[in-house]
């Protein structure tokens, strides 16, 4: 069936809740309202208030309670309304969620999935456009996932819910409804920890994820028309990272561009660029280029264009790579 990412995620949730009655949803406005983006639309009516629970407005409480729910045998899928509001839960995530398995040498685990809308590009209110995945990709024990299309969104979320590790599942708001695609009705898993080459190319590699994939595709198409063949690696799982797929591509093309919408300094692009420079230095015919937002706070909507990476900026960078 043709569907948007919102529908695909909704279907993944409904499917897993049907399959496994330990799976439950909690968060702010996830119930009767169906979530501010309607991602949980209809689930409250279908599964009732004990499986789809509106919580008090308290993110640390939501994640903390989810840890307790998981330890006591349930499979919570917690929604944080926007990534900009996950910070109050940071202590629960860093000090407990990510560490519980290690702290108890496996006696207790917290297979919790935290879903949250993520990223800019939709001219949202202040604090509603955060893309701080870099904060979470340096936390041992935590898995960080970002889908770039409806098909992956469904399969990755199902894999996350069925997995044994805590997962931060970042949903690019810009892609929620921007494009539709064919998505199988039945449940399926897209394996975690595996990047995907979503466009084959010979001359340069763009490593990206989430809402930057369409931007990368646009730039790649433009480059093609200028005779440059660009390969695109969709990281999909940001942490633990699939370095193999990235290095394989870069060793082939000899040129690498890392693209993300978060600010440059300390962003995940640094880890990727460092990895390439460490492990593929001799294959590089040009330095790795990072195309990112500048090192500033996400501006309010009227100035978003000064922050958000554009296909044009990516194209210029590709040319620079080729001309080096």
């Amino acid at each position, binding site marked *: 069936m043709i569907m948007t990412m919102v529908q695909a995620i909704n279907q993944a949730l409904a499917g897993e809740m049907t399959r496994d009655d330990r799976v439950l949803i909690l968060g702010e406005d996830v119930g009767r*309202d169906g979530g*501010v983006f309607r991602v949980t639309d209809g689930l409250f009516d279908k599964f009732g208030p004990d499986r789809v629970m509106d919580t008090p*407005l308290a993110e640390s409480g939501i994640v903390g309670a989810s840890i307790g729910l998981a330890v006591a045998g349930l499979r919570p899928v917690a929604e944080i309304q926007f990534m900009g509001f996950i910070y*109050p839960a940071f202590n629960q995530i860093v000090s407990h969620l990510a560490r519980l398995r290690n702290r108890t040498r496996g006696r207790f685990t917290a297979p919790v999935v935290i879903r949250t809308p993520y990223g800019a590009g939709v001219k949202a*209110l202040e604090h509603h456009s955060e893309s701080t995945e870099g904060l979470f990709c340096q936390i041992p024990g935590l898995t960080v996932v970002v889908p770039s299309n409806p098909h992956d969104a469904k399969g990755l979320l199902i894999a996350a819910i069925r997995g044994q590790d805590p997962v931060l599942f970042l949903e690019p708001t810009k892609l929620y409804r921007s494009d539709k695609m064919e998505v199988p009705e039945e449940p399926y898993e897209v394996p975690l920890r595996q990047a995907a080459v979503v466009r084959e190319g010979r001359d340069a590699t763009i490593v990206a994820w989430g809402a930057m994939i369409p931007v990368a595709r646009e730039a790649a198409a433009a480059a093609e028309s200028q005779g440059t063949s660009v390969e695109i690696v969709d990281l999909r799982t940001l942490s633990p990272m699939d370095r193999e797929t990235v290095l394989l591509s870069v060793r082939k093309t000899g040129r690498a561009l890392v693209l993300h919408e978060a600010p440059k300094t300390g962003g995940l692009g640094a880890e990727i660029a460092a990895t390439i420079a460490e492990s593929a230095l001799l294959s590089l015919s040009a330095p790795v280029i990072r195309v990112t937002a*500048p*090192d500033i706070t996400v501006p309010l909507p*009227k100035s978003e264009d000064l922050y958000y990476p554009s296909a044009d900026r990516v194209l*210029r960078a590709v040319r620079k790579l080729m001309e080096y």
Partner: protein
Amino acid sequence: MIERFDPLKGERLHVLDEGGRSAPDLDPGLDDASLRALYERMVRTRAADAKALKLQRQGRFGTYAPSLGHEAAQVGLASAMTKDDWFFPYFRDLGAYLTLGYPLADYYHFWMGNEAGLRTPDGLNIFPVAIPVASQIPQAAGAALALKLRKLGGAVVVTFGDGGTSEGDFHEGLNFAGVFRTPNVFVCVNNQFAISVPRSRQSASATLAQKAVAYGFPGVQVDGNDVLAVFAAVREALATARSGGGPTLIEAFTYRLGDHTTADDASRYRAKEEVQEWERRDPLLRFRLHLEHKGLWSEAFEKELQAAAAAFVDQAVAEAEARPAATPEDVFASTYATMPPDLAAQLAALKESLPEGRR
């Protein structure tokens, strides 16, 4: 007066009854001009709020959180404040902003998507709006502690919603205030919903005012649709705070008549009847009746106010929309006191990549 209404006994402070008649023993005793001013502020607030919604539908405004129904709470609390006091607002406080003299053009400019609109004019002690719910509360406690330590005499008013009381920052902020006996007035605008989540889901405590018991200072629930009740309670709490009596928690019991924001559809989670019931309790209507009883209201007066409000609002829209867009410098310059070389280089590179007109 506040101590006469014990939230643990379910008591709530009203000055005006539904018919707009005031209880003599509770009436704050404002003169005619002041009473008329309260009404005028509420009328302006409603006009400015309605215009914002209109602009949003026309795509001239970003997502917006309307204040419809909150006018008495907003105007009442701000009218009790003086120049020495500080205000830490939340995101649904239009009437308080206007009452305190914040330029409507700036307010619009921010909600249109420009940081410049958050730049409080010099001389006004209004902290930038907190979008992360409840995060302003410990900040307000700290500011009040500073006023106390510096013996500056003012007090700090901070607002938040019923949902805000569930956050850890609500607890940490009020607890700090209790421990340091800071000059704070905590105003919880309980409109009975946090987006779609009803008040009953937010906390099992019978009232939100009673949460003050946990912090060792008084709490009171007031009728948030009664501008005189809100005014009287906040004025008394401010006097207590300024005189070293410590903080007060005031729960203004009201109802959000509009959607949570322009991105919300309240009909998904609220019955039409309930909304209509509260429309009958419109705070402007009730206060107009009060003015009528006092012979302070007439059709002509109303027309005059409406016309003035409309002109005031149109003027602000024109001003806000005439403002130049932020330049790349504007967007980069305030990240640090002085711009690091790398950031300057990023700015230069960005400008190069921009079309002429945008540099």
